[in-house]
């Protein structure tokens, strides 16, 4: 049984301390103990069987044990004093009296100490307490006083040595009985009443019971020696109804009556030797004591267990109630309802929230399976019915597949619900109940759908990868808005123009969601188309403006479009109402490109937007961004721009790191608006000699741009660079494009190196050069050989390599 409680550790020592704490209360305690001991001794001596001092029932030991247990062992002087006073008149001298008194004090002291050690509880409401007081408190400890007492009698000559065993037994039994009968009784008196509200009839019952016990014991013992056992059922009654509180006084009463009868020679004690009388009395007393004790302890223990169970049940019930109310609240918050279908009873119960989900007042009407399914739209009801039927046929415990279905509320609103269910079967596999939950997922589904559309659109709208342009580092970021609709109208694009220049655009279509995303997609495509046709940024922006004006687009559309000539670093740009691009120089100084600003697109502003230009020096950074980067609630856009200019100055060497750092510093947590970033940095070509491009005619012009820059940065003589090396490279590349791959596609690789004033160019392909076709071809290679100092042409199965060299330093021209 789990209800057994451990003894509280505090009482014995606490009581010792309490008794010693106050001198006056200690003295009073000692005096009280002495008086009680003396009184009990005087009463006990009246029952003496052997001489004047050996009694079959010695109550003072019980008093002493109680005193040590309740007041603490420090009150021993009271016991010792009283014992001495009691023993003085009945022993042969002071010394034997003192020795006997010492034994009488020591025995209860040992008893109390051992009881404290084994965790004895004064309520004696557990079996182990009963066992402890019988064996440790009474039988074991009292052998001390018996040994000391009879030893003193024999030593002082008051008792013949051959009578020692019998006398020892009587002494021992008397002391033990004193502990067994008196200690529980007194302890039961000093225990506080734990349940004050005892009914009056209980007192009446107690009174009747004790009268009965007194009468029965007196009459039974007096009338017939063999009827003594009649009191046993009454002791049982007392123990069962009143536990230790009833059993202890009842046992005391019966033992006193029996001892009195023995002392007076009444009833069974009329005849027989002293030893026989003694034996009968002790056996009877022991039976009475043990019975009442153990019975009372067992009943107490069972009652405690019962109470503990009741408490646990009550606690459990309270918890269940609390959980139920929590569940109801949780359902309400999560918009999840639950239901239970008791199949044999044809009964369905809905939680309050399920009624609400269906647009009804909680528990508005009783539900059956049929009425429940009737709430569902017809096209889904059949599915639910067939799912349920299949589940019932399966005849085992299992979860049903989740099902999404539609209902129409009484007010006409259509809702999408997600249902889960499981079926439970009985011992014979008959379906007993089905339980499930219903969640209103209308809003979630709608948001998901819109989000999916918008995301798909957006993915198609931003470049999936940035072009690799030799001599230019590029990095871009797009951060969706933190709100549920993750897609905005921000966009950017990088276009390689036919002239070899690079078109850079960033724009913002006001609003979020599929509409903004689709507008931005149209704009991006239009810009690409115009940019390929038209070299002037202002003209491209002006065409876009006309497009936006004509095409319905009601949103506010801003953009800035720039054309970068990597060769010269010149940037021409036009800005249609977009936040100004930022240029961060090599030294970290940041400045905004405020020029070239016009109105947003579609504002019917006549005339071309302004066009401006500036020079982007190598290793400086051009940053294009959308307003999400600089606009924050509660902060003016000017402050945002200022902050951007400050943050951008300590951008790292790496452009990707630069973008990351900008986002980290400028965008905190979820952004209210989406953010797009595009960073461009012209980087030296030197040290990156390898260019790899597709072998197509359109790469020739951009390739020349790159080579021009590269040669200039390598300090090659301008005449050699532009008129000789460039032409030789062009010829070889043209050859590769025309002859290496036939109709197939393939790469063209060029590496350049200027060392010790000599330029070495290696051009490589993975094809096989075919013979020149037309009559007007065939000039290329001879021209290259004429232009360069050395030309090696190596053809192999893996492709063809052309390596050529020429002095390239100033003044090296032949």
């Amino acid at each position, binding site marked *: 049984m789990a209800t057994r409680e451990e003894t509280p550790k505090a009482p014995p020592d606490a009581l010792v301390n309490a008794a010693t704490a106050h001198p006056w209360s200690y003295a009073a305690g000692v005096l009280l103990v002495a008086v009680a001991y003396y009184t009990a001794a005087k009463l006990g001596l009246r029952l003496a069987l052997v001489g004047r001092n050996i009694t079959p029932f010695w109550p003072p030991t019980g008093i002493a044990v109680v005193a040590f247990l309740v007041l603490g062992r420090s009150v021993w002087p009271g016991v010792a004093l009283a014992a001495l006073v009691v023993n003085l008149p009945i022993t042969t001298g002071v010394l034997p009296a003192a020795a006997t008194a010492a034994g009488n004090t020591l025995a209860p002291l040992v008893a109390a100490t051992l009881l404290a050690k084994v965790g004895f509880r004064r309520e004696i409401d557990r079996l182990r307490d009963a066992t402890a007081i019988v064996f440790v408190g009474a039988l074991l400890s009292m052998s001390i006083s018996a040994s000391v007492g009879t030893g003193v009698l024999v030593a002082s000559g008051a008792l013949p040595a051959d009578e020692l065993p019998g006398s020892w037994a009587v002494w021992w039994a008397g002391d033990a009985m004193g502990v067994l009968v008196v200690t529980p009784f007194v302890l039961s008196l000093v225990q506080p009443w734990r349940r004050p509200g005892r009914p009056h009839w209980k007192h009446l019952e107690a009174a009747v019971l004790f009268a009965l016990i007194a009468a029965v014991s007196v009459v039974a013992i007096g009338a017939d020696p063999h009827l003594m056992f009649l009191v046993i059922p009454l002791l049982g009654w007392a123990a069962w109804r009143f536990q230790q509180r009833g059993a202890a006084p009842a046992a005391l009463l019966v033992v006193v009556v029996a001892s009195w009868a023995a002392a007076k020679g009444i009833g069974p004690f009329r005849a027989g030797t002293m030893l026989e009388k003694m034996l009968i009395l002790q056996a009877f007393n022991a039976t009475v004591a043990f019975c009442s004790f153990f019975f009372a302890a067992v009943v107490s223990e069972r009652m405690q267990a019962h109470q503990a169970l009741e408490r646990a049940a009550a606690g459990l019930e309270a918890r269940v109630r609390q959980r139920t109310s929590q569940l109801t609240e949780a359902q309400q918050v999560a918009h999840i309802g639950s239901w239970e279908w008791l199949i044999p009873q044809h009964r369905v119960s809905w939680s309050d929230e399920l009624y609400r989900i269906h647009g009804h007042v909680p528990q508005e009407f009783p539900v059956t399976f049929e009425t429940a399914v009737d709430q569902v739209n017809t096209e889904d009801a059949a599915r639910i019915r067939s799912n349920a039927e299949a589940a019932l046929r399966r005849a085992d415990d299992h979860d049903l597949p989740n099902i999404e279905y539609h209902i129409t509320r009484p007010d006409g609103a259509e809702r999408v619900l997600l249902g889960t269910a499981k079926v439970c079967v009985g011992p014979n596999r008959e379906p007993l109940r089905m339980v499930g939950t219903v969640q209103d997922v209308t809003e979630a589904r709608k948001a998901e759908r819109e989000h999916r559309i918008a995301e798909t659109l957006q993915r198609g709208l931003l470049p999936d990868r940035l072009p690799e342009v030799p001599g230019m580092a590029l990095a871009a970021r797009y951060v969706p808005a933190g709100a549920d609709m993750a897609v905005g109208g921000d966009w950017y694009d990088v276009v390689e123009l036919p*002239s070899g220049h690079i078109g850079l655009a960033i724009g913002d279509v006001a609003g979020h969601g599929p509409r903004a995303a689709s507008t931005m997609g149209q704009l991006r495509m239009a810009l690409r188309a115009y940019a390929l046709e038209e070299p002037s940024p202002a003209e491209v922006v002006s065409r876009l403006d006309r497009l936006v004006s004509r095409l319905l687009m009601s949103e506010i559309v801003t953009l800035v479009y720039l054309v970068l000539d990597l060769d010269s670093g010149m940037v021409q740009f036009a800005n249609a109402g977009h936040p100004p691009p930022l240029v961060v120089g090599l030294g970290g100084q940041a400045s905004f490109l405020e020029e070239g600003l016009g109105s947003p697109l579609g504002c019917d502003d006549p005339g071309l937007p302004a066009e401006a230009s500036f020079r982007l020096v190598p290793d400086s950074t051009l940053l294009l961004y959308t307003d999400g980067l600089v606009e924050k609630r509660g902060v003016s856009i000017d402050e945002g721009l200022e902050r951007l200019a400050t943050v951008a100055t300590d951008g790292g060497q790496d452009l990707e790191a630069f973008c990351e750092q900008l986002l980290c510093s400028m965008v905190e947590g979820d952004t209210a608006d989406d953010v797009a970033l595009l960073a461009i940095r012209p980087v030296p070509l030197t040290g990156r000699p390898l260019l790899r491009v597709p072998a197509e005619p359109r790469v020739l012009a951009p390739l020349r741009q790159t080579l021009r820059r590269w040669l200039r940065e390598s300090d090659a003589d301008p005449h050699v660079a532009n*008129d000789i090396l460039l032409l030789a490279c*062009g010829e070889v590349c*043209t050859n590769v494009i025309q002859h290496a791959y036939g109709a197939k596609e393939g790469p063209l690789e060029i590496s350049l190196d200027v060392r010790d004033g000599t330029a070495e160019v290696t051009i490589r392909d993975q094809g096989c050069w075919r013979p020149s076709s037309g009559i*007007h071809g065939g*000039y290329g290679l001879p021209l290259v050989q004429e232009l360069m100092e050395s030309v090696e042409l190596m053809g192999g199965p893996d492709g063809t390599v052309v390596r050529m060299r020429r002095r390239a330093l100033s003044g090296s021209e032949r």
Partner: protein
Amino acid sequence: MSDLARVEGEQRGTICLVRVHGEIDLSNAHEVSSEIGVAMGQEARRLVVDLSDITYLDSAGVALLLRLAERLRSRRRELHLVAPRGSPVRRVLDFTGLPRVIPLESRLEDALAQRDDALPDEFP
């Protein structure tokens, strides 16, 4: 039209003067060729192509000029080229031996001043 090269045509009597600016390579040779064809009207007897403002010309451009000359010759018209002496374009033309087939002048005036009958030897 392409950014790479720009073609400007001008009618001077029976002479059509076409100035080509920019660069000619494999990527725009065909385009330049057809633009020259457009710029030259039906009337012109002679086409003068001024290559002075060409900044890049490689063998693809040479091939274009040869094809153009052939086409004109089949219609009994003549092609004259202008390229300044010492210019990079002139070097390419000289190297390919083109002046042996197509009259090449260093100065535009010379090309324009030549009389119709001053055809190369091949056309007596």
